[in-house]
């Protein structure tokens, strides 16, 4: 299934939006590499949901202006977008950098949200000032970034010889946009942990078991900090389990969306502490 692709204007910026399928609205926020490798996952997700996947300002064919600089700007941008689209009961999903944006949205307003899915998200800081939580990709070579990001390294390779000029332009645009938003403080908002209690929608935290960008411990910690969040680990997958294990990832999201909020959930709660807290 090919998505429909359209250009629309959000907060004064020309924005590229892809859509798949029908059903409850699922707003998907892509990771640093954009939407290039997301087709299989989003197509499968489109069997169950009305998937809406914009390119963030500066990524893909979406424009960014010089006065649009922070993940805070992205959060307000997507609050505008959901209002403009008159979306209600949204499942807000994000991978990695996209998960950070989802968190920034949720701590501001969950009025249009029903659930949230965070896939190997970044955006929060837990450890002490001298121990990084998130691997610094800017200190790594391209090959090392792929080794850290993928369980199956072959899936991460950029096939430059067969890429079109347009695809390489998008790779370059994505690189600049990510750096603008995430250079420093690196890949997180130092104030995020302070406000995570404001996330008041059922949340699924999905994690690649072999992620070397952000560890499963980090993912577990995020699940611990969000009231009632569920944590699911996907084995034989790195930082992008939805790219390496799309079927399993979609199944987890579908199961969660059906069971969220019900007492008969088959998914384990994030921690014993939360079980106790809810009892």
């Amino acid at each position, binding site marked *: 299934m090919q998505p429909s692709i359209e250009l629309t204007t959000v907060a004064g910026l020309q924005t590229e939006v892809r859509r798949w399928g029908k059903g409850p609205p699922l707003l998907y926020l892509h990771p640093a590499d954009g939407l290039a490798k997301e087709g299989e996952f989003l197509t499968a997700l489109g069997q169950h949901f009305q998937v809406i996947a914009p390119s963030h300002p500066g990524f893909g064919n979406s424009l960014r202006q*010089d*006065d649009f600089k922070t993940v805070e700007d992205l959060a307000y941008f997507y609050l505008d977008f959901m209002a403009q689209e008159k979306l209600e009961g949204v499942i807000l999903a994000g991978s990695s950098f996209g998960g950070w944006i989802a968190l920034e949205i949720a701590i501001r307003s969950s009025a249009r949200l029903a659930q949230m899915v965070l896939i190997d998200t970044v955006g929060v800081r837990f450890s002490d000032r001298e121990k990084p939580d998130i691997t610094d990709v800017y200190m*790594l*070579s391209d090959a090392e970034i792929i080794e850290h990001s993928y369980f199956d390294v072959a899936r991460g390779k950029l096939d430059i010889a067969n890429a079109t000029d347009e695809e390489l*332009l998008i*790779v*370059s645009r994505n690189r*600049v946009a990510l750096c603008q938003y995430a250079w420093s403080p690196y890949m997180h908002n130092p104030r995020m942990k302070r406000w995570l209690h404001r996330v008041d929608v059922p949340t699924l935290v999905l994690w690649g078991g072999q992620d070397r960008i952000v560890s499963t411990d980090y993912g577990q910690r995020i699940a611990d900090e969000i009231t009632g969040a569920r944590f699911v680990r996907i084995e034989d997958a790195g930082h992008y389990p939805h790219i390496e294990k799309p079927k399993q990832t979609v199944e987890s999201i579908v199961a969660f969306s059906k069971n969220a909020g019900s007492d008969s959930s088959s998914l384990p709660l994030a921690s014993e502490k939360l079980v106790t807290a809810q009892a």
Partner: protein
Amino acid sequence: MKMRVWGFCENAYPEAWHPDLKSLRNNLPSRNMDPVKAADILHRHLDEWAMLDELGMDICINEHHSTATCLNASCTLPLSILARETKKARLMSLGIHIANRPDPIRVAEEVALIDVYSRGRFEMGFVKASPYEVFPANAQPVGQQRRFFEAYDLICKALTSHDGPFSWEGEFFHYRDVNVWPRPYQQPMPPSWFVSMSPNGGGWIADRNAGVGTFLSGRSSKLLFDSYRRRAIEIGRPAGPEKLAYLAIVAVADTDEEAKRRAWEILGYVRTSPIVAKQFVNPPGYVSVEDNARALRTSIIPGYVPTYATMMLNDGTRIPQATATVDQLIDAMAVFAGTPDKVFEQLQAYNNYVGGCGNLLMMGQGGNLSHADTVDNYRLFAKHVLPRLQDLEVTPSHDAMSLAAAQ
């Protein structure tokens, strides 16, 4: 015309240049450096610079960060020492990394202080800096050019405002009350310099009435100077040789053979400067999206990245700078080396080629060139070459002549 000559060197730490290292910058642990030896190196270069004052030359100092190729992590610190130790030499920073410094007002204070210490001998050069410098500075590479210009505008206003505090709410910098003491010695402020490595990069520098410097650019420095002169004439600003500066490797000795040996030692800089891990040479936003997309295919990063720097020879062919021979680099006008007569002839040829360049930034030390050789190099230059640069005949190129006629 007169060609001023400014002594220059990188304050390298060659002992850490292990041939198997893949990066001499950013991620080379500082345990590869012995601070006692570093002190010897830094004092030695201060002595050499102080000697330039006695030889009637000027002094130019740069900075790099987190690297074994240059121990000067600040150009203003050694210049402030020299402001006290020297009496006549003009002192140029080339340059301060103002796009990477978080506080331009602190830069304005340092600049004004050196100018007062030296009683008006300071010339303030600013550079956007090599791409890999954003990493040790933790400076956002995206939008760096706009931040560079805003920092410069703010520094100029801070140096030239004398009526009490002013406020600045820019895109990058936010100050309620700026009021710099001491104010600079020179009025309205010390002369400004910028660097460009681009053949058509002179326009924005002329717009700011600053001098333009360029490093080891060889023949393409003429194109840069032409673009500067063209714009300066267009807007009615000075476009003479005194506004142009060229940094080259200069080695003088009693014989050509010894001079070329000295040049080869100094060229240790050119051979090691490009040794930097690939992830540091092209930070996001440093080149245009289009250029970056092309670079993904060719693996060649456009613009000035030393790894890929090539130079044009007299016959029009291009050679990679880092692996070139001394003779090739003499041909390419990046190196002036030989007996005093030869060096004068080479400088004269360069000066004619570019249509008159009033400032030679003489890299008279580099790599493993010893203190004794460095002193001899500068002394021979000062005795036999410098006097002949005080009143140079220029036979300008066709372009330069037509520009002069237009003026």
